[in-house]
């Protein structure tokens, strides 16, 4: 599905992720964990193509960038923009409907189903500005549902979300997994990871461990990850970039 080869990512010559090599299997449900500043969000951005690698590459197998859906950590959505829940969710059909196409009856039914799946039925015509944080996240998940992507990337989808919403949205993630979609989610809550994600990719500016969650989420690995992200433990060293 997804290969990282010697992947080095960063901003302005400061690498956030160093020489990462890993492989995400088809249909896997992977948690991406690591301390703050470990490069988790950066990695997702590189997969979506928003960020070009400094070195190495991300390669897709059997899918293209068009099959990727991405939920950023802080979406740039203007919450004061006068648009309703149903309009926001329907944006998920963009790839099918495009800039000019009409929403036919089937599309409308799918929008309705997606809204129902995330438990927002009844709020379809509310302006997005009047939703709570949790309701808004549910709406974004409904939009992801409609994107019908083979690879779903979620960047801290449950930060600042209550436990009931988290449980509902986890159910959506499990459904994706059941449908054979590949899901990668950046998460901080270790219990959520252990209980819901079979695979874990632990990074701390470089790969710490990757594999079955219980083997990755060990005390030793966490300590190693923390040590790698300590600031100022070593002077910055020049790392030669070979042009890819």
């Amino acid at each position, binding site marked *: 599905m997804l290969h990282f080869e010697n992947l080095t990512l960063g901003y302005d010559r400061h690498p956030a992720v160093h020489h990462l090599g890993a492989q995400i299997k088809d249909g896997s449900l992977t948690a991406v964990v690591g301390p703050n500043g470990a490069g988790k969000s950066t990695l997702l951005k590189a997969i979506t193509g928003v960020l070009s690698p400094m070195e190495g590459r991300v390669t897709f197998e059997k899918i293209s960038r068009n099959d990727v859906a*991405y939920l950023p950590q802080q979406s740039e*959505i203007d919450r004061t923009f*006068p648009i309703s829940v149903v309009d926001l969710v329907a944006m998920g059909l963009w790839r099918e409907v495009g800039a000019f196409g009409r929403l036919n009856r089937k599309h409308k039914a799918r929008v309705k189903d997606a809204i129902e799946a995330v438990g927002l039925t009844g709020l379809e015509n509310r*302006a997005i500005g009047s939703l709570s944080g949790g309701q808004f996240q549910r709406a974004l998940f409904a939009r992801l549902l409609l994107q019908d992507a083979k690879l779903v990337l979620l960047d801290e989808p449950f930060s600042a979300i209550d436990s009931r919403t988290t449980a509902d949205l986890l159910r959506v993630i499990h459904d994706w997994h059941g449908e054979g979609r590949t899901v990668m989610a950046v998460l901080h809550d270790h219990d959520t990871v252990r209980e819901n994600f079979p695979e874990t990719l632990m990074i701390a500016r470089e790969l710490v461990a990757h594999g079955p969650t219980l083997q990755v989420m060990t005390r030793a690995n966490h300590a190693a990850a923390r040590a790698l992200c300590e600031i100022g433990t070593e002077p910055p060293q020049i790392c030669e970039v070979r042009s890819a």
Partner: protein
Amino acid sequence: MIWEAIIEPFLQFGFMRRALLGCIAIAVGATPVGVFLMLRRMSLTGDAMAHAILPGAAVGFLISGLSLGAMTIGGLVAGIVVAIASGMVSRLTTLKEDASLAAFYLISLALGVLIVSTRGSNVDLVHVLFGTVLALDNAALILLCSIASLSVFIVSIIFRPLVLECADPQFLRSVSKLSAVTHFTFLALVVMNLVAGFHALGTLMAVGIMILPAAAGRFWTSSIGGLMVISAATAVLSSVSGLLLSYHYSLPSGPSIILVAGILYGLSVIFGPAGGLVVQNLPRRHYKQ
């Protein structure tokens, strides 16, 4: 009485009818663009663009006098160059759009003033600054109506990507390559409408008819379609009232039109049902849940 005050000036004088037609064209063309400028929090961008257009129009004026074509082309070129250059800087570097736009329009303004001053100042330049709505000729009217039609047509074509580009640009970039195209098309629309506006209202007042009705409309509705209708109606109402005020009291017409729009804006701020001052401070019935 009402007939004499409101209808007769238009029946009696051709220049009033022409002014009215010109203003309606601008109102219909510019307000949808103004609505999106406001929703994208780019209201001041409109102002900056208007300043950027001024030197272009002035250069056109210096080259071939008070010629419609030369001034239009000069304004369009200057506006589009500034829009593209500032857009490129903000997309390719870390500088935000507002800062890069401010940089470019200031450069453009300074350049324009420099060019004008080397050729000696000219009284006719006042026409560029404050417009000549009561002296619109046929060619100018055709230009204004064409720009308005084209503008409405383009807005209707790019409506969906434009809404998405305003509401969630990150998402649009992730599903489509239209983001940049939409953005620059929109900026081109802003420039086009400002150029149309300056023939009638002057470069400095043209932004007013774009932004004030949209800002007023925001206090009456929260749907985008409703906003466009209300702001266009507000702009037309301001044009008619402003023209009549300027006719009866011998006031300059451009500022009169914009001031009426300003009064409508003020009334909306106070009495508008969607977040106006009165409504916000009244105890209101609300749902239990």
